[in-house]
């Protein structure tokens, strides 16, 4: 069976044999860069298509069905349209920041990709502080959003950016605390360690109620951090027309749009890694023959399957719930999620000390 793992080792040995150490590293960097961008483009198209289909089915509609079979080329056509469109910069805008902002958001999204393990041994950079890195870099995106909102010289944008900043900064806290729950159980910040610790069962199963709570808190926090409904206050179209990206058009708008979906993907990938074992197949401690059967499904399929399931959950939220108001949003964080995750962290620590988890 061809697995991604075999591919990478093959490539690495071949490159090192032919080019030597420093050049091989450079070549790998280029390959990784190209691969990341391709992945982004593909993910963007696929996720937008998926969102539209999910929305349509929930809304008793058919969704895109004209361009290509079942409309699968609809999103490509839309992107093409956006590329062809003129990228307007408003007169009163701060031109430099205005044009920089979409790239900031996009780069922040790209950087988080580094420590994510897509399959067994298929990871760009397995750094020792993986989850910390993720938590830190993912909050850089808010700078891009603030930049966009401020530089547009548009009051809707400014309001949207302010809302977004308040929201992302607060929800980082509970997201961080939920990540900590897993870090405590694993005893490591390294992504590969976290995944390997789930070889005898995913944390969501091994960790009992506290981990389940941490998972739900993290899911809510991810939804909020990516500005998705019901937390899409930053771009609440019935209040602020389009929020922080009101003034953007053409490709710059597309970058924001893409970054939103990439962020969802990354959020769900981290979620899957922490609580569902990333690429780790469904294992139950002790059932060796069962575990062996599960191993036949390639690890990349496990990873993408879990991630897609979580993305579907987030889409499901979006197409069901009304939007929260800005003060309710902060109430939810500071009065419910934060205290709950603090107490939960205590529970998890206690559980880890007593060794009650499986």
């Amino acid at each position: 069976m061809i697995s991604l793992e075999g591919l990478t080792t093959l490539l690495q040995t071949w490159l090192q044999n032919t080019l030597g150490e420093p050049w091989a590293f450079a070549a790998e960097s280029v390959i990784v860069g190209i691969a990341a961008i391709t992945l982004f483009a593909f993910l963007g198209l696929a996720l937008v298509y998926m969102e539209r289909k999910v929305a349509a089915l929930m809304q008793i509609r058919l969704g895109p069905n004209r361009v290509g079979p079942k409309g699968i080329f609809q999103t490509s056509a839309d992107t093409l349209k956006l590329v062809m469109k003129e990228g307007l910069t408003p007169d009163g805008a701060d031109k430099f920041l205005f044009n920089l902002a979409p790239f900031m958001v996009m780069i922040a999204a790209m950087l988080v990709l580094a420590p994510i393990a897509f399959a067994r041994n298929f990871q760009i950079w397995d750094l020792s502080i993986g989850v910390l890195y993720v938590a830190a870099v993912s909050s850089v995106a808010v700078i891009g959003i603030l930049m966009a909102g401020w530089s547009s010289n548009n009051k809707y944008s400014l309001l949207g950016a302010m809302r977004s900043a308040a929201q992302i900064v607060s929800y980082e806290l509970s997201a961080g605390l939920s990540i900590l729950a897993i870090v405590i159980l694993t005893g490591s910040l390294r992504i590969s360690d976290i995944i390997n610790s789930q070889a005898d069962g995913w944390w969501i199963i091994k960790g009992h109620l506290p981990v389940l709570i941490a998972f739900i808190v993290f899911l809510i926090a991810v939804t909020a951090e990516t500005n998705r409904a019901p937390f899409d206050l930053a771009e609440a179209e019935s209040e602020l027309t389009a929020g922080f990206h009101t003034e953007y058009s053409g490709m710059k708008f597309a970058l924001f749009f893409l970054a939103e979906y990439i962020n969802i993907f990354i959020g769900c990938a981290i979620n899957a890694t922490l609580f569902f074992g990333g690429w780790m197949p469904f294992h139950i401690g002790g059932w060796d023959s069962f575990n062996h059967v599960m191993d036949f499904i390639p690890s990349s399929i496990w990873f993408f399957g879990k991630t897609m399931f979580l993305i579907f959950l987030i889409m499901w939220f979006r197409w069901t719930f009304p939007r929260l108001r800005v003060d309710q949003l902060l109430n939810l964080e500071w009065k419910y999620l934060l205290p709950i995750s603090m107490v939960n962290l205590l529970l998890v620590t206690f559980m880890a000390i007593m060794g009650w988890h499986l």
Partner: protein
Amino acid sequence: MLEELGTNDQGDMIINIGPQHPSTHGVLHLVITLNGETVKKVEPHLGYIHRSIEKMCESLSYRQFIYVTSRMDYLSSHINNHGCALCVEKGLQIEIPARAQVIRVLMDELTRLASHLLWWGALAMDLGAFTPFFYSFREREMINELMEDTCGARLTMNYIVPGGVMMDLHPDFQRKVKEFLRLFKSKIHEYDDLVTGNIIFQNRTKGVGYISREDAISYGCTGPTGRGSGLSCDIRKLYPYEIYDQLQFDEVIETDGDSWARYKVRVGEMMQSMRIIEQLIDNIPEGEFQAKTKAVLKLPKGDFYTRVETARGELGVYIVSEGGSTPYRIKFRSPGFSNLSALDHMSRGGKIGDLMATMGTLDLVIPDIDR
């Protein structure tokens, strides 16, 4: 005016909402003063869709002017037509056949139901939930099809005319109405699960956009807006027209005065409308659908005023006649205009999101306000 569009001297931000904005449902222009997220003042600017319907009516005959009124509150066009027809009939002092009366009431209530269904979906959309919109439109579509069968149009019907109704009911009408009622009843629980019972929705509307009974009276709020504040103002009960005094239905009144109360009033009204339709649908009397009228209608000299309960509140039709075949002056008292005037009072001190919720529960139809 220009400096108003920037920031005022207290450092408050002034924002234009509309004339093109997703939640004003038409070309309403609100200039709102914001302190952070808090709304300090709301100033509606009207006139973007003013078509001077009242003036137009002065040059149209008493048969002709009714079609224009479908274009005022296009969501309750039957009821607008009804009000005008009643006013003309009052002047002519003609009796309407029993069949026509029943048909008119049936159409009114179906329109009310359709209008409230649309409002329900649009309110959910204002609050950020898109899916309910499609569910309510599915049901509304059935009503529209019923209307299309009988009246030949879906929105601007011109079906209720002086003397009765323009055409007889379609033979399929009764069967289709019953089918609709059955289907609608089987879907109501979805409405509750998706919106009414949803905790986010309740939090978004409870305590938002409060208006007291006294204020509602002084602003002239009618319809569900007034009834949400505990003001009994259902024209169908207070000044019954047609056969409303013989029907069993309740006036839905809530006393909280907030958006949630208005929501509950409208949902309750949908149930009452269904109750009325159920009472009538099997008891449509046989007979003429139109009284015999002269070819050219001439109202005697004098003023005539009638009022009807549209889906948004009280619609008053005031005709001044000089005895000719066209009215000397026509004035419509539209419910939306008075309800909108209370918006500033309701939304002060709330957040921007509250303003949208309040506007959604006022159920504004802009052509009705501007005319």
